[in-house]
């Protein structure tokens, strides 16, 4: 399938690599191997002392919790990040790529978790992007031959129906995922790589059953001539597809073995089991919920990402929603807040909500902290105090606003939740991530909030600021505020929540109560998530 090229297979690496004189005669040498690879961010090691290898014809499954270091590891291999220590060897040469482009030139291709296609360009342009020089004639791209080449590739992979001249954005997400996969092959062919190393970062997360099956068959057809690293949250899939499985936990390789000899249970066991620091999550301050029901959700569904979700949050209670990416947990949070249309009933304090929108929610003292702080968490044109005060302007529901009063309220809030800022009139952009997040909280709190919906409230926040946010959350529950907590961080969910609702594929699969003296383990949750 891949075009045979004449001449030596590796002449062009001589410029980069030193030859490691290891001659292995018994087994084929691994296409990719790493030894003692470490990546530190400040004092924190995202990947630590990982040694792995993948041979031609082999599929290596890589698994681990969110934050275990899977993506970082793939970044190191694909040249988008640099190892702090350790060596990476590709085809027997030390690989020290400075960009993904360079890695691709050397036969390392990656299908990114979040689509890395340019939606406004056509399929063929995406297939060959960054490598157009192969179709160039006197500096002008020979569109026709590139399009013909792209069509050949599509046809060869039984996707001839994809019109390579159409824009990528006109195809649904799953098709785009396939296109991205084809790009890895198209490029490996274009760059005359006979044995590509292909990194698949959760390629199945957004695919439906048939597409997953197709992807599987595709991997089968190419596995003989390539080395594949496959990351997935779906354990069964991972075990079925891989020859070997490696488990990462907190950046370290905690185990690897033949897929045949492993079971889902044994993988669970290896993946989790981080020590949970009870002081860190302020578990001693967990409250018994009060009698008033702040939120009751019944049969919530949006016909797309979740269905039949029931929830209940009482006074002073923290209800966590756990689930992997694509489980629908974030969408449930947004739908409850009214930021996403959904059917089903939502009651706050017994009152049935007939119209749901962020505006109506805000009036009922419900606030939402979005997961992407930088994108929609705050107003980057405003000062710290204006960012906070706008919350009370919305809530007070009066026509007049007095800047002085608003600023005083904001200043009090800055003191109360200890926002570290150069002054209340400093730009919010001058704050650290943790303090920006506290400003987002402050805006919600300036409305005398009754129910708070949090989506990954400590994402991208350092440990010190996390603790302050946990303190704040506990303070709020002391006042009787109910909290619906959506989080990717299982320990955070377990540590903070009174009850955890576990979701999988858009449905609630379990409700685990988590009293202070009998917190569930990560394993218990994960077995319902994957």
């Amino acid at each position, binding site marked *: 399938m891949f075009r045979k090229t004449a001449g030596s297979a590796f002449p062009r690496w001589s410029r980069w690599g030193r030859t490691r004189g290891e001659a292995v005669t018994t087994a084929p040498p691994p296409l990719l191997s790493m030894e003692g690879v470490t990546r530190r961010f400040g004092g924190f090691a995202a990947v630590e002392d990982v040694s792995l290898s993948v041979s031609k014809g082999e599929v290596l499954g890589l698994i681990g919790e969110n934050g275990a270091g899977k993506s970082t590891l793939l970044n190191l291999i694909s040249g988008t990040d640099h190892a702090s220590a350790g060596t990476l060897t590709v085809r027997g040469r030390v690989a020290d790529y400075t960009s993904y482009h360079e890695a691709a030139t050397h036969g390392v291709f990656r299908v990114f978790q979040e689509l890395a296609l340019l939606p406004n360009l056509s399929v063929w342009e995406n297939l060959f992007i960054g490598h157009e020089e192969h179709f160039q004639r006197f500096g002008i791209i020979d569109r026709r031959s590139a399009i013909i080449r792209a069509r050949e590739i599509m046809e060869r992979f039984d996707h001839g129906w994809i019109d390579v001249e159409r824009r990528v954005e006109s195809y649904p997400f799953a098709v785009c995922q396939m296109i991205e996969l084809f790009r890895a092959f198209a490029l490996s062919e274009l760059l005359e790589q006979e044995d590509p190393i292909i990194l698949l970062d959760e390629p199945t997360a957004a695919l439906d059953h048939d597409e997953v099956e197709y992807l599987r068959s595709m991997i089968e057809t190419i596995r003989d001539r390539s080395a594949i690293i496959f990351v997935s949250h779906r354990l069964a899939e991972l075990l079925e597809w891989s020859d070997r499985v490696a488990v990462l936990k907190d950046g370290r390789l905690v185990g690897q073995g033949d897929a045949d000899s492993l079971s889902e249970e044994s993988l669970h066991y290896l993946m989790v089991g981080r020590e949970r620091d009870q002081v860190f999550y302020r578990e001693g301050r967990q409250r018994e919920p009060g009698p008033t029901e702040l939120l009751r959700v019944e049969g919530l569904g949006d016909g797309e990402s979740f269905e039949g979700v029931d929830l209940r949050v009482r006074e002073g209670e923290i209800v966590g929603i756990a689930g992997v990416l694509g489980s629908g947990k974030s969408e449930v949070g947004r739908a409850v807040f009214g930021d996403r249309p959904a059917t089903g009933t939502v009651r706050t304090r017994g009152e049935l909500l007939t119209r749901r929108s962020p505006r109506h929610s805000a009036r009922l003292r419900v606030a939402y902290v979005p997961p992407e702080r930088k994108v929609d968490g705050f107003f980057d*044109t405003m000062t710290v105090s204006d960012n906070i005060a706008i919350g009370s*302007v919305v809530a007070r529901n009066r*026509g007049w*606003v007095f800047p002085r009063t608003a600023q005083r309220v904001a200043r009090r809030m800055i003191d109360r939740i200890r926002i*570290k800022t150069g002054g209340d009139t400093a730009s919010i952009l001058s704050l650290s991530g943790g303090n920006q997040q506290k400003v987002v909280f402050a805006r919600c709190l300036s409305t005398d909030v009754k129910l708070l919906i949090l989506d990954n409230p400590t994402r991208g926040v*350092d440990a010190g600021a996390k603790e302050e946010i946990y303190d*704040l959350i506990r*303070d709020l529950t002391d006042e009787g505020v109910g909290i619906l907590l959506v989080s990717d961080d299982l320990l955070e969910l377990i540590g903070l929540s009174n009850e955890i609702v576990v979701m999988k594929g858009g449905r609630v699969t379990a409700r685990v109560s988590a009293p202070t003296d009998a917190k569930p383990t990560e394993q218990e949750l994960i077995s319902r998530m994957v």
Partner: protein
Amino acid sequence: MTKPSLDPPVAARRTEPAVSPTRGQAGRARVNWYVAAPFVVLVLLIVGFSIASPIFFTPDNLLNIMQSSAVLLVLALGTTVVMLTGSIDLSIGSVLTLSAYVAAIAAQSAGTTAAVLLAPLVGLVCGALNGALISYARLPSFLVTLGGYFAFDGLAGYLSDGQPIGLAYGGVAEGFGGSVGGVPVISLWAIGLLVLVVIAARYTRFGRYLYAVGGNERTARLTGIPVRRIKLYVFLLSGVLAGAAALLQLVRTASASPGMGEPFLLLAIGAVVMGGTSLSGGSGGPVHSIMGVLVIAILANGMVLANVNPYAQNVIIGVVVVAAVALTMKRTRDSIVK
């Protein structure tokens, strides 16, 4: 709420340094410069023209400048409000023309009161059309108001057959013409509207929402701000102000003429941007726009007095607008402001 209690080890573990005071001060100094720059340009212009022409710095001429800047100021106020939300209104000039024609026709047949009421009302209707298409049909403001730019002007031409319609003496001209204590009445009206818009932007919920919507529409929505309604209001306001400006211009020129509003459009946008209101929304404000309006009015007046070649005048206005924006614009965002 009780103060969050921090365990000692937590406090000790805080690694991130608070924002250093030097950084904060540098930021503040720069903000002051952005506010001061148009003022500096203004002072330079005044000094320059005073030297170039003995007539420039006389009470009569200063009043003249006030009067000539009144219409531009009112239009700039509407443009400021629209631009604060990150939208743009390209139709204000045509709305002015249309409103002026309707008012002039009404003044002939139905009397003064009808004319005075109809001008802002026509503006309001035009603004409602723009606003409804932008907020509820979710079309880009640039496109919708570009359509308005042609359509309202065309409508005015249709009404008038392309002929100017004069304003009879007395009536409207009397009520709005003349001066009070030496200050032209139309300037007083412009100042009155300025005060209203400044108060609205600073001291009302609507005003705060303008900045929020312009700052980040999505965050505004998540905070519970009725983003679409605010956008509708903004275009209504812009329309009404264009209608009011039509009345003032009608009084100044004593007639409605084809295309009378068109030259104001880009001058108003230029004045607002020069004043420091960002085209992408969220920063600036009506007070800022005063500076921009004055710079343009003084430049136009001074260059005539200083006998600058009329073609060169346009070149100079162009250069000053770009230079002033280059001086005043906050370039905090990495991307190129479109």
